[in-house]
């Protein structure tokens, strides 16, 4: 909202390319109380995601993928180091909530609100707190557009429990998009869906990403999904999670169902898979 007034706490601004999401020297240790056993979830994370980039993070379960995402969302506080979005520390008072959308693993739709009213929940909260300025009517219209974009037109007045798992996840995605954040954080959003729905939503996500030019940080344990979607795949090592490797995905865009059968896709996918064999 008010980037001019932001404190100059950033690290990556003078590196030429401005990172949209930036982790610098981030450690996350759980249970820092002296008497408790501590677990180092993440160690020495330095990671920059450029504006408009699609970056996936993969790694064995328990490697701190979700922790990484929750740090970027400001849900968790780093034990050491800073996480910035658009140059502003996410823990600081200057952090603009309307810049970040988080798509959760499970559907978050509230069961007493219709699909459309669920979409408008973040808008109500952000507007009351002065984080967004547009009128409510503007967002109502936008909600209709988004529901069309994710293929849920006609379900505005349905309640969440009347929808299938895939449809609920579409609601979750559009809910994160309603206030037009420039950063989209996604925590295994399709992990609980069947393979067919997952493929379909992957294509739709890429279409939305293409249309809206968002910066995406995507967490998944599905290596093929990561390769298919991303510009770059970050491999985390098992506990403590560190950046073990970065793989540039140079597959041409727009990607289609066909992309998966290309030789280059198979090559890259094998490269990522190899990584996991080395780790064991």
């Amino acid at each position: 909202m008010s980037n001019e007034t932001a404190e100059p706490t950033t690290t990556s601004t003078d590196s030429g390319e401005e990172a949209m999401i930036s982790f610098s020297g981030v450690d996350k240790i759980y249970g820092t109380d002296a008497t408790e056993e501590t677990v180092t979830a993440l160690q020495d994370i330095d990671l920059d995601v450029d504006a408009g980039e699609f970056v996936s993070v993969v790694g064995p379960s328990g490697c701190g993928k979700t922790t990484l995402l929750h740090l970027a969302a400001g849900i968790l506080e780093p034990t050491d180091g800073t996480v910035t979005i658009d140059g502003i520390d996410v823990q600081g008072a200057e952090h603009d909530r309307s810049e970040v959308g988080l798509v959760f693993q499970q559907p978050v739709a509230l069961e007493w609100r219709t699909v459309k009213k669920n979409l408008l929940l973040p808008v109500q909260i952000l507007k009351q707190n002065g984080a967004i300025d547009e009128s409510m009517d503007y967002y109502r219209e936008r909600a209709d557009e988004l529901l069309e974009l994710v293929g849920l037109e006609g379900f505005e007045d349905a309640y969440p429990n009347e929808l299938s798992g895939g449809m609920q996840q579409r609601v979750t995605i559009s809910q994160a998009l309603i206030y037009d954040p420039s950063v989209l954080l996604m925590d295994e959003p399709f992990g609980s869906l069947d393979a067919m729905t997952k493929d379909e939503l992957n294509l739709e996500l890429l279409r939305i990403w293409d249309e809206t030019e968002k910066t995406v940080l995507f967490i998944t344990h599905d290596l093929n999904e990561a390769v298919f979607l991303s510009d770059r795949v970050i491999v985390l090592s098992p506990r403590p999670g560190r950046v073990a490797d970065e793989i540039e995905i140079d597959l041409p865009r727009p990607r289609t169902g066909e992309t998966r059968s290309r030789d280059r896709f198979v090559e890259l996918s094998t490269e990522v898979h190899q990584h996991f064999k080395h780790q064991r």
Partner: protein
Amino acid sequence: MIADTLRKLGDRVDGRGGVRLGTERAKRWSLSLLGLVLFLGGWEAVTRGFGLNPQYYPGPTDVYRELSRIWEPILTVLPNTLEAAGVGFVVALVLSIAVAIPLVASDRLGNALMPFVIGVNTVPRIAVTPLVIYWVGFDIGPFDSVGLAAANYVMAVWVAFFPMLIAAIDGFRSIDETTENMLIVYGARTWQEFRYVRLQRALPFIFDGMKTGFILAMIGTVVGEFVSGTPGIGAMASSVIRRTAVGRAIAIVLVLGLISTAVVFLIYLVESRVVHWRESSIVGEG
């Protein structure tokens, strides 16, 4: 026949699972009815078959006869009891929600006061009835007496409040981690958390609390009347018991039970309207 009618009704009301649902509901109702008939029949058979003295061991027909005799006096004192229990219940409900919100909103306040709340809740609160009457009903100490009958209102609040408070606290706390994280991401303030999520999540708990709460308010008032002797169902029960008019005592208890059941059912109906996204239960948690 009843089962058929109910099944048809179920079909009409519920389009999808109507047949199954309707049949099940009909079965349940007919079974309850059958149970009631068997119970009353068995009771009557035992009292008659063993030739028990109806003064001490009345059968259902004796109870019915007594009920028709004291029906008029019951109706004249019933408003007193219902008013005390009803007002006490509403006060306890409002108080329980008003106290639960700050206890859940502030961890420090919650940690400080929860042991006290749980402690008082486990105390047999009925046991202090004479003290309540003494403090509220008698003209002692710094306060002017507000009258003996006021103690019955206070009893209703005192007995119903704590279980309803605990239900409300449980309700306001019943928020899952994902939803909580979602609210953090949106930068929701505490009041927004309550306004948009916690209140709705708490409603089923609060309604369950109300079901037990009303029954407890009735018990509080009746015991208050029982001890103080102010005109009401409780005092009436106390006097018939002293005269060992067992049939009348049972008749009075029956009336109390029916009223409580009716109110609990009413709460259930309101709940299923308000909490439309969730299936309501007719029995409270307690």
